């Protein structure tokens, strides 16, 4: 006699982990209000839970100083009762989001006024992947996991290595990373993430209709996506940026020891201090001779 959940498990049950950008520096200068954005996202999350009885939704808030889980549909810590004015999902999520925003604000220190600090996308992606690994460990019957990044802040170049590590780990575990980017210019990190992991990158042209874009492009589970005509990637910029000027280059020089990228020929690598063109033992003996002479 099979247990009840295994009888209902089909291949279109999904686990959706959403990383929600709550960076206050971005939202305060953006033309679309966070409350309108959040109401459309909450309706979308409710619709995911309605599509299948066994679907799961997890929301991680990406702040500018910290990241944290704010909602888990399969957790038993959710309040079952509501105060009657809104569904249980809304009240749980908003309650946790308020707590998170207050804590995040306390951690703010002064930043350079010219730049808008970026959100900690690498932290949110790492937490999402750990949660998905836990879902894989649960047994042979598990939902198909995927990650959706609702993001608007610009890319922080200091997070490049961490985001790439997360992307490769997602690719290795076959977890697609979808991105719905609402900022002004396209985000190179999210485009690369979606390209490498096999997800969808989409920048909605009109934010008033965000719910429509979310439910037509991002709501379908992985199994049914092959039957749909989804937005194609327009072109991913894979060019690297050089370490000395931070400009994108299409031809450059790479240090063979530490793989740093330079746009012009140097004598010494600024990252690992290896001298180019000479065997390392010659360099060491030249230094020690200099030291002995002085």
């Amino acid at each position, binding site marked *: 006699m099979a247990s009840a959940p295994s009888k209902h498990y089909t291949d279109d049950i999904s686990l959706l982990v959403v990383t929600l950008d709550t960076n206050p520096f971005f939202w305060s200068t953006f033309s679309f209000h966070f409350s309108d954005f959040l109401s459309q996202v909450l309706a979308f999350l409710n619709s995911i839970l309605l599509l299948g009885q066994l679907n799961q939704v997890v929301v991680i808030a990406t702040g500018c100083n910290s990241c944290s889980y704010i909602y888990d549909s399969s957790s038993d810590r959710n309040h079952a009762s509501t105060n009657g004015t809104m569904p249980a999902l809304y009240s749980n999520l908003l309650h946790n989001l308020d707590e998170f925003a207050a804590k995040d604000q306390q951690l703010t220190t002064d930043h350079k006024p010219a730049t808008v600090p970026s959100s900690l996308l690498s932290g949110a992606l790492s937490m999402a992947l750990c949660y998905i690994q836990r879902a894989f460990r649960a047994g042979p019957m598990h939902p198909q996991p995927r990650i959706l990044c609702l993001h608007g802040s610009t890319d922080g170049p200091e997070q490049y290595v961490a985001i790439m*590590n997360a992307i490769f780990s997602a690719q290795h575990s076959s977890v697609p990373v979808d991105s719905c980017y609402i900022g002004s210019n396209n985000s190179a990190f999210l485009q690369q993430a979606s390209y490498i992991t096999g997800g969808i990158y989409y920048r909605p042209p009109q934010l008033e209709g965000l719910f429509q874009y979310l439910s037509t492009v991002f709501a379908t589970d992985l199994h049914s996506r092959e039957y749909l005509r989804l937005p194609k990637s327009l072109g991913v910029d894979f060019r690297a940026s050089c370490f000395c000027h931070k400009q994108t280059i299409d031809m450059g020089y790479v240090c*063979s020891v530490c793989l740093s990228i330079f746009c012009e020929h140097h004598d010494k690598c600024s990252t690992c201090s290896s001298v180019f063109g000479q065997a*390392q033992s010659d360099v060491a003996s030249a230094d020690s001779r200099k030291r002995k002479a002085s």
Partner: protein
Amino acid sequence: MNNIAGRPLNGDVEDDDEDEANDDGLEAWERAYTEDRSWESLQEDESGLLRPIDTTAVHHAQYRRRLRALASNAATARIQKGLIRYLYIVVDLSKAASERDFRPSRMAVIAKQVESFIREFFDQNPLSHVGLVTTKDGVANCLTDLGGSPESHIKALMGKLECSGDASLQNALELVHSNLNQIPSYGHREVLILYSALSTCDPGDIMETIQKCKKSKIRCSVIGLAAEMFICKHLCQETGGTYSVALDESHFKELILEHSPPPPAIAEYATANLIKMGFPQRAAEGSVAICTCHEEAKTGGGYTCPRCKVRVCELPTECRICGLTLISSPHLARSYHHLFPIVPFAEISPSSQNDPSHNFTNTCFGCQQSLLSQGNKPELSVSCPKCKQQFCLDCDIYIHESLHNCPGCESFRHSKSVTSSQ
């Protein structure tokens, strides 16, 4: 000699040292099961099917031991790794490789594991090259040249799996030595020999060949499938490689996959150099061009060489027209975690978790799993020394082996340590 009743037959007291502790009158085979009753730990799940024995505790303990051993070796020094590797895999196709002690035969196991090793190798070392050499009938042949695409090597290997004759270690080393002399000076030269025979049929003095390889700075490692041989051990000791002998199929798989991450590099072995590389853009969908790898017209996605503007189909590759190495920035980024490893997490014993001064939350920071077992007793967990967040053991394994990011350090802006200048 005893009978079942336990009385010595010939009354000799000196024979008693062979029969230890059989006062309870059990046969020797019964004694083996007094402690180990493995059938009693089997369980059934709700549908009546047998549940496999829980090996997670053993797995965790093994993992923690391995991590402690690695940490004590590496200490805190940033050990340089050889990231641009030129590796030759020498496969022994002598008569000994058709033995059936590995199921279905040693040759089949070797072929399957070499295939998965090549894929894993290019995954972890995208800038490196691999070549295949086989040895049989006393000679060594070069099966494929040093190349960067896994499919061509795998296809060539699967076509040539007949075993015969004797293996020749010296001929293989001579062939590899002459081929590896032609590679650029910034590359690290390595050989991995998969040896099933117990003898070698050499035309000259193998000690001279070993000294030649040592002088050319070639790092030779051997994985034996039969038994330990002195000459293999000597070769590995002289050149700085590792020698191991596989006990069974899964042990062989573990041993061969240990060679995929880059080994610690000895700085004098390769000169540092600036390599000119191109970062092509992906062509727009709908553009038509003749690609240089297949020499036919193709539409859609492909890459344009920035120097000579021809189309190539996949990366990483070398442009066939102008010789420029073409890669994309994710390929370089795949190797960054070797250069910026994360620190091993520190164990927290269950007893210190109840200590209120340490402020433990009892849920794993990564996956939100409760760290209390049934009965609200804290289980073994780990914490990151930098951000002090608590993680469960499964997240610990995942973070160190696959993710290479600590979620705690990445999620708190002001505890981030500077890892790169980008």
